[in-house]
């Protein structure tokens, strides 16, 4: 590890505060990560020195803004190892990226009777666009079931991916259980039957190095804010021939090549998918967030987070009457730990933890089919980032004990 946690935390001033009179332990990173000072400085600097519209102006500031925006695209391309930055489309979010693929590409390639395959653990953003596509195109939506530890049941995957499958859409890392899914095996299954592989990388990018060429994904989507960038900037990678085939779903300014009264033609990828003024500062912030994690090194981040997760897992599983969902093995678990205190609703757990300065998510985590599979309405979820420290983890473990005591003793 070539960085020191105390130095890193200085770049995230938001962490150095009290909430409800207690030291803040921010453990809802799977929902959104905090932004480092270099990111917020870059955004502020852009607004104070360079703000102007991109790709339109013929004046200096606009050229500078365009350069910064396109440099950010280059950084994203390098970050996930695409062949070209033209394969990177800026969107608003992972959700928008996946909807773009479902509507712009799915509608063109899925026909009545075809099949779309997802897993039962998908976030709603990688479920509902496909459910809607299946409904629009009279196709069948099929699910890969899970093993008891939350991993994909590869027998189920082998059964549900058939010659009728046109699209396989799965998360790289699950947002509830945190398992890294076997994308390479699914890629082989999908491509063997000429289906397209769409990967939701929202929960992967801040925890591990991602190489879309190695994954051989046809599309890969993620959100900047899960990586320490501002909210409202998302990324869609697509293979060049597929992006060429994909239709824009938003039409308007700057995405056109030529417009007459009756018809219009589009610019080349990626601009044909970026109608309207884009989130320029968000893209610039994303570029800086990428610089930041690359400077730290994704391997170093992964090793450090594994230590945090080991402590969290050991501490939480040591509390009697607490159920942990998914594997009790840090090698299989990235970033998130979902759990319940038996007999205490997760909303009550989260309120208690909040009063102790510990911010966790409680709910169904936009994964209701998975909740049904786990047999619960909701879970509490603690999720880590590289700026968390052992004190955050210990505060959580102690907090869970206190909350359990409160409810089970007071009752």
């Amino acid at each position: 590890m070539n960085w020191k946690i105390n130095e890193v935390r200085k770049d995230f001033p938001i962490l150095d505060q009290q909430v409800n009179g207690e030291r803040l332990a921010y453990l809802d990173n799977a929902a959104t990560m905090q932004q480092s000072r270099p990111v917020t400085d870059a955004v502020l600097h852009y607004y104070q020195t360079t703000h102007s519209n991109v790709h339109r102006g013929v004046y200096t500031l606009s050229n500078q803004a365009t350069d910064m925006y396109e440099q950010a695209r280059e950084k994203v391309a390098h970050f996930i190892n695409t062949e070209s930055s033209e394969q990177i489309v800026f969107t608003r979010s992972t959700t928008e990226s996946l909807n773009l693929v479902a509507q712009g590409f799915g509608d063109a390639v899925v026909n009545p009777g075809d099949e779309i395959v997802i897993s039962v653990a998908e976030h709603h953003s990688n479920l509902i666009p496909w459910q809607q596509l299946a409904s629009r195109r009279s196709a069948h939506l099929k699910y890969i079931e899970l093993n008891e530890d939350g991993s994909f049941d590869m027998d189920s995957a082998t059964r549900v991916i058939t010659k009728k499958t046109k699209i396989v859409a799965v998360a790289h890392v699950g947002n509830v259980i945190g398992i890294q899914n076997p994308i390479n095996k699914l890629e082989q299954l999908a491509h063997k039957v000429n289906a397209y592989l769409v990967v939701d990388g929202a929960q992967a990018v801040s925890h591990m190095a991602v190489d879309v060429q190695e994954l051989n994904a046809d599309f890969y989507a993620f959100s900047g804010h899960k990586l320490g960038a501002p909210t409202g900037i998302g990324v869609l990678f697509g293979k060049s021939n597929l992006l060429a085939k994909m239709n824009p779903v938003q039409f308007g300014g700057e995405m056109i090549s030529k417009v007459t009264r009756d018809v219009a033609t589009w610019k080349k990828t990626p601009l044909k998918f970026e109608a309207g003024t884009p989130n320029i500062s968000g893209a610039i912030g994303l570029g800086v967030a990428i610089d930041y994690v690359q400077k730290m090194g994704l391997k170093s981040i992964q090793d450090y987070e594994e230590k945090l997760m080991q402590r969290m897992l050991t501490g939480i599983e040591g509390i009697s009457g607490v159920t942990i969902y998914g594997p009790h093995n840090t090698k299989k678990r990235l970033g998130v730990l979902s759990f319940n205190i038996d007999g205490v609703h997760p909303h009550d757990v989260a309120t208690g933890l909040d009063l102790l300065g510990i911010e966790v998510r409680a709910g169904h985590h936009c994964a209701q089919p998975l909740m049904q599979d786990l047999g619960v309405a909701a879970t509490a979820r603690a999720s880590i980032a590289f700026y968390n420290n052992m004190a955050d983890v210990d505060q959580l473990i102690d907090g869970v004990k206190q909350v359990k005591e409160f409810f089970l003793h007071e009752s």
Partner: protein
Amino acid sequence: MSLDQMNDLYREVVLDHAQHPHHYGQIGKDSVHFQMENPTCGDVIDVSAIIKDGNVDEIGFTGTGCTISQASASMMTTVLTNKSVSEARDLILSFSDLITGKEINDKKEDQLGDASLLASVAEFPARIKCATLAWHALDELLQKEGTSK
């Protein structure tokens, strides 16, 4: 602050209602139902009522949820049983005002009985939806069924 503030939100009466809810379960065949879900956590509550001649004769509920939602549903059944539909809807509005931090008069607060203890939910904005779930479900039911019976 530690967990001291928890005692404001989860008073003994609240915990007791959650653990031993009043009027939990199905009621007679003449009852009408309305189901409502808390979209943030997936909790579902099914409120049933027997409404006769503009009066709410009986209320019951089923479903699972957090301490606040279960206690609030239990309190609601006690407060609103045997009220006229218009009185019940008026008290639902008062309860909603109370837990969103608005002032209500003393008479209304008395009428809300145990439910007035949930006033501290106003300090926990994320939990307001939990506290109002059953009340909103009954309000929908009364709107739909109350005028026709």
